[in-house]
């Protein structure tokens, strides 16, 4: 590697977000044992409700794990405590620029590890999921999440479960009850369609969920706290969208496109629980955007005008992380935009609704009816919407083995792409990270041939 490492070390905000993502265990241990806070397990970007209770901490389960390079990150974290993240990043960048042998190599290793260690951990969780009863038929995402709960589930005080279109997902959530010492389950049912007064039912379901969270927390729900969090959450969403639609669609990137994709991956992972601290996350996101804009303004980065933009989706349920490097080597740039595709980057409408729960219900209902959709027509429309908004030149559809929900719409999607977008598209199959890399390379090579004359 080190194109990616070379770039990332200069982004202090990226380092911070990556650091917070991967050192979650220490942070969460402190929260749980020293500050006596309760951990609530969440997955997919459904953590917002938990932030309505200051003594509850949402956590995407992978973050309770220890990562191999934890030692280095701890040093890095300690250094940042003394010198500040910006100075650490500057220092690391300086070392990289000077090419100081061993030190430079260590930095490469740190950054390589940030990326690879997560993937290794995911694969480890995959094996644990299968060993503990998840049939191999199911998608990567479900297997790894089950594995995460088998290994660290006892640390959570509750799981917050939202039912969605995917039946395997809903059953997976139920199956968490089979794990020894499994925590309390809190369910929020999202009605499949917005018919009649379904929205009111969803509001009631959210209030039921809040009452359950109150029991875990021991404190009463305070609408102002939730409302304030939604404000923070909306600011995060706004920055995320700016990165997606302003920076990633521009002709000049603040870093090389593979690094840019890597940043989008880190955002995709960390957005699910805001690294357990929404305010800190918002501040880091703001810094990230600022740093990106500054670099572009100073012309630090890379002209990417001659590189076709490829939308790779869906990747939230598992994908081959080498993809963006391969595409970069083949002359393209990869964009990941799953969360906006599923409409989770839409604002929670607190400006128009006084009751934050009502606002959140509208937000969730919009996701269900127009984003992920309760049917494939809506779902495929979501892909088209994003492809148009990002003005992409090609689309890679990630068919995750065992995914019976989003992966099954490719035929319909392909037809719509041909009819409405007229851009090349392919489907890549994925089962497990690191599997069939050569085949992926070959297929991507053939796909990228179509952009040979791209100007």
């Amino acid at each position, binding site marked *: 590697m080190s194109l990616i490492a070379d770039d990332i070390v200069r982004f202090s905000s990226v380092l911070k977000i990556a650091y917070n993502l991967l050192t979650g265990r220490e942070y969460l241990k402190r929260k749980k044992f020293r500050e006596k806070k309760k951990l609530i397990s969440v997955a997919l970007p459904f953590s917002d409700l938990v932030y309505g209770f200051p003594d509850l901490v949402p956590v995407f389960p992978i973050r309770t794990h220890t990562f191999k390079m934890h030692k280095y990150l701890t040093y890095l974290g300690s250094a940042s405590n003394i010198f500040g993240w910006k100075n650490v990043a500057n220092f690391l960048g300086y070392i990289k620029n000077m090419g100081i042998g061993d030190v430079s190599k260590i930095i490469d290793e740190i950054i390589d590890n940030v990326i690879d260690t997560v993937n290794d951990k995911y694969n480890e969780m995959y094996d644990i999921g299968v060993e503990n009863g998840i*049939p191999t038929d199911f998608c990567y995402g479900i297997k790894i999440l089950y594995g995460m709960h088998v290994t660290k589930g006892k640390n959570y005080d509750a799981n917050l479960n939202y*039912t969605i279109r995917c039946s395997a997902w809903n*059953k997976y959530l139920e199956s968490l009850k089979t794990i020894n010492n499994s925590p309390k389950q809190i*369910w929020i049912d999202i009605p*499949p369609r917005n018919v009649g007064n379904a929205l009111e039912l969803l509001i009631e379901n959210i209030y039921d969920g809040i009452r359950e969270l109150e029991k875990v927390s021991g404190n009463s729900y305070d609408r102002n706290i939730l409302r304030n969090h939604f404000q923070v959450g909306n600011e995060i969403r706004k920055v995320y969208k700016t990165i997606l639609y302003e920076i990633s669609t521009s002709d000049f990137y603040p870093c090389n496109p593979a690094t840019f994709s890597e940043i989008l991956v880190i955002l995709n992972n960390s957005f699910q629980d805001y690294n357990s601290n929404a305010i800190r996350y918002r501040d880091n996101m703001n810094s990230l955007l600022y740093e990106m804009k500054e670099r572009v303004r100073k012309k630090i980065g890379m002209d990417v005008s001659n590189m076709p933009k490829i939308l790779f989706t869906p990747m939230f349920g598992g994908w081959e992380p080498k993809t963006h490097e391969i595409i970069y080597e083949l002359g393209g740039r990869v964009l990941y935009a799953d969360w906006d595709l599923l409409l989770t980057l839409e604002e929670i409408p607190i400006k128009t609704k006084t009751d934050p729960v009502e606002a959140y219900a509208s937000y969730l209902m919009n996701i269900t009816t127009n984003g992920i959709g309760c049917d494939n027509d809506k779902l495929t429309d979501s892909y088209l919407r994003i492809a148009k908004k990002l003005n992409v030149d090609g689309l890679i559809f990630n068919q995750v083995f*065992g995914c019976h929900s989003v992966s099954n719409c490719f035929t*319909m999607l392909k037809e719509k792409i041909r009819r409405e977008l007229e851009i090349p598209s392919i489907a890549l199959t994925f089962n497990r990270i690191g599997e069939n890399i050569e085949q992926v390379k070959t297929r991507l090579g053939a796909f990228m041939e179509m952009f040979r004359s791209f100007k």
Partner: protein
Amino acid sequence: MDNLELLSEYSLFLREKKEEGKKVVAFISHDNIPEELLDAAGFVPLRLMFAGNDELMDASHDYLSPSTCAFAQSCIGLFSIKPSHYRFLDIIDYFIISNHCVSDICASEIISKYFNIPRLNFYISYTKNDNSGKYFKLELLDFKDQLEKISGIKIKNEDLKESIRNYNNFKKKIFEFSNLNIIGSEKLRVLQRAMLYGPPFLPELESHIQMFKENQVQKTDNLKGILITGGSIFLNDFLIDLIEEAGGNVIFFDTWVGYSYYSQIFEDNIIDSIENPLDLLVNRFKNNIYDDHSVPNFLENKISQIELVYQEYFKKTGRKLGIINHIIKFCDHISLMSSHLKNRLQQKGISVLNLERDYSKANRGQLSTRIEAFLEMM
């Protein structure tokens, strides 16, 4: 009568209905579709309950990935292969898109979209509580509205109640039939016919009951009792033959084609006491706790149900009942819980075979060996 004859007879039945001016509404077999509403609106419900084969599964791969439920694949295959395996599929007027599972949504949508069959929507919540019951009612109202629009007639409460009563009596009769001591394949044959035809099959069902009661009860004592749970055994499937060839006898069909269907009945006084017939359907939905669709208590409910049947059988016969969990490959609901179901039942001393398969013919030998081994072990 073999299935070929049944299907050709059914084809004639549907054609007659069409000639009477009725329209056919098809749906992928699942236990929460309100057939009574279709019936009250003058439609003929057609439940897709046909097993697959290699050809049908292969034919679906132009539309969805092979790692999709083999039953959903086969349902698509039934429409994509021309001429149709079953000619009556060509006369379907509407197709219900529902969300028993996500493969149900995908397959139904594909059938509707690519084979030009107008869709009707009917979705259900995944959880089961008061609010999901209220949501079910919203869907019923919406569904009723859709049916009224296409039929041009208003569905009156008394007509719906009459349909509910008809279906209820019909299901009670199937329940009575299911308690007869006859060989599983015979039971299944009648069950499948009954569910395919619906209440018009009632007179024939009654004569079957009469016949089996009067004639000597078939000897099944030398066979090992089996409860089949998980995926249904659909029409044209050879699985029941394999079980019987291996020395087993299915005494309880804990599946869509079976208990999940005929157990959903009301006491007559309930039908009379509830004014709005839609509320009856809502109650039925809420009481259907063994439904594999719902979360979060599917596993507990299923275990308690199987345990109950097991204990009753043991009390009655002094013999143990073996459980075959029939897992159609890539089924979200059954497959994901299969190892947990097996472990929990085995902890209670109940033998379970998780029998996973698709509809490939090549699997027949392997399935046979596994069933034989399981029965031997019992």
